[in-house]
């Protein structure tokens, strides 16, 4: 049981990292990013390639994941931040699909659709089982804590006030003589770098990646998490991700409490139950569990 809970916690913490990045994009700055999985994918592949065929230490992979994902956000920012919000959403969605097609097609680098197997797992030296699982959780917690701390510092800084001003009234910011695009690009790169780190953790945790894992559904899981948690709040990103995991994994145990449903039908009932929970949640708590900071 402990190892199962540890696995859920690890995946949940990876989603927290993704949600923090998206909170920075959407919750704080108002950028509708529908391509978050693209940065996640770049991070995962960077870490995987460097630690397998590249033969580099794992730490190098993590740094490269953050840097490459962040850099990938830069041109998108340049090209599209002058676009209106909804166009930005389409551009980012297109970006994430482009990333997926590139890793599918560039066989020499990514092994294409065959994927990259045998990515070294973190703390393999500690042996399998609880010691390494706890070590991984510890590192994930530390990285999450660092990200949260960085966020609080950011929100309280002049930079934080500026991006919130951009979210609330971009025209006013422009009238003050500030250039919103510059701030948006930096926010985009920072959130993307966080997603890249999440991708590196994911690659080293699952141990095998293929392009199929980086579909837009991942982006929308993250959106679900921040909407359930409360848009624009750091606590919302954390609570929302944990809640999403609770829905997805907790529903596995429905079988033990719901009678009259065969094991095979349970799989479909389970997905239905997750959907129902999400619908009810948005109906009765549309501002998210922690409240919507932006509408206060």
């Amino acid at each position: 049981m402990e190892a199962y809970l540890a696995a859920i916690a690890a995946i949940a913490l990876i989603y927290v990292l993704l949600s923090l990045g998206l909170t920075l994009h959407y919750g704080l700055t108002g950028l509708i990013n529908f391509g978050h999985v693209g940065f996640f994918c770049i991070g995962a592949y960077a870490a995987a390639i460097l630690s397998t065929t590249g033969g580099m230490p794992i730490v190098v992979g993590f740094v490269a994941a953050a840097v490459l994902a962040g850099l990938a956000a830069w041109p998108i920012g340049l090209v599209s931040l002058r676009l209106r919000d909804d166009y930005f959403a389409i551009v980012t969605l297109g970006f994430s699909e482009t990333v997926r097609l590139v890793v599918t097609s560039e066989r020499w680098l990514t092994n294409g659709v065959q994927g990259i197997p045998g990515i070294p797992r973190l703390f393999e030296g500690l042996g399998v089982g609880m010691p390494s699982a706890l070590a991984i959780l510890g590192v994930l917690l530390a990285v999450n804590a660092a990200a949260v701390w960085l966020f609080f510092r950011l929100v309280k800084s002049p930079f934080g006030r500026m991006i919130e001003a951009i979210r609330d009234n971009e025209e006013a910011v422009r009238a003050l003589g500030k250039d919103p695009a510059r701030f948006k690009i930096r926010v985009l790169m920072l959130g993307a770098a966080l997603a890249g780190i999440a991708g590196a953790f994911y690659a080293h945790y699952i141990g095998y990646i293929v392009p199929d894992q980086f579909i837009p559904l991942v982006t929308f899981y993250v959106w679900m998490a921040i909407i359930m948690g409360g848009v624009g709040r750091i606590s919302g990103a954390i609570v929302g991700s944990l809640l999403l995991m609770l829905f997805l994994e907790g529903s596995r145990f429905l079988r033990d409490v719901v009678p009259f449903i065969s094991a095979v039908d349970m799989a479909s009932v389970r997905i239905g139950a997750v959907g129902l929970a999400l619908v009810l949640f948005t109906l009765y708590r549309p501002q998210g569990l922690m409240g919507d900071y932006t509408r206060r």
Partner: protein
Amino acid sequence: MTTMNRRTLLGGVGGALALTAVPVSVNAQAATFRIGALNPVTGAGSPYGSGMQKMILAAVEEVNAAGGAGGRRIEVFAEDSQTSPQAAVLAAKKLIEVNNVRAIVGTWSSGVSLAVVPLTNDANILLLNTSGAPALSVPPANAKGLSYRFQATNDRFGRAFAEIATREGFKRAATMAFNNASGIGNTNGFKRAWEAKGNRVVAEVVYEPNQPSYRAELQRVLAARPDVIVMGSFLPDTTIILREWFQSGENTRWIIPGWAANPQLIQALGAQVTEGIISVDSVSNERAPSFAHFDQVHRRAMNQPGASNVYAAMTWDMVITLALAMEAAGPNADMAAINAKMREVANPPGEEVYTFAAGKAALAAGRAINYQGASSVLDFDQFGDVTPDFGVFFITKGQLERRYVVSI
């Protein structure tokens, strides 16, 4: 607008947590042997997943009705892999850690199997899969020899295609592959075997999924004037490609895997377009009594003939083979002892048996057995792979007609 405050919600969440903590008796009783059925009930594998899972349950029922295996009853814990590696990893962790299963049975896509195999290796339990990726045969995936593949690899399909192309006297072969592991595995396997026979592939195209038209790709292949086009494809894209080929009026023949060139394809395109297409499938061991028996059970559970779901035949065989290995290993054998018996009960030499009950009786009488499966004769090589026979079907007047069988 809401009456629910944070506290009630937290309470609800806590309640949900408490529900998940309902004690699932972790201490397996000595008399039961637990297996996990991890199948693609939802997602891309959903056309096969529920049949696979139902056949696992049915086979276990049969084993238990025959008095269990090695003195133990088998108990199944069913999970959905959602055809997604991430969901499958969490489901496998749950099966291993919470339910204490000793084998995971029936993973389908290669992505899922490759993501789950490190977990089953760590836990020293069996993984019985139906995936095609070559990486599953060798270390690191199969470093401990605990993984068995009940499906032919895509590479073997490709080799069968080459045998057929030679036998039909084709000279100028071209390939078209759907851009995923399975599609490319087929055409690469074909290319290797075809070139080893001293032939040349005149054109190769890999195409992206979900296109409304494949005319550009088709033109590139047809420009090389092939006398046969070998496909690594699936039903939706094959339908479009064949329609556009027929409109082009070019003359060529086709070799297509059986999951794409099936009755639905003929229904979609009509007899005229599909005339003469060669469809290749790993034959379920159709003439064996074990298949007849499986077919009967499948019809009862799914209301469809057993031949409609080749993967369900594989999961059926997984349970029977595992149960026979348990029986051969004797009461209270550990996983290593059971694993050591897997090949012994499935491979020659030995008396050919077709059901668990017959195998159990033969073992009790002290005879060696060779289980002949419903999905294939089930002889595992050193990598834990099987090599089934391939049926060659010609589409004639809208009917799939089996002409011969190729062994590789």
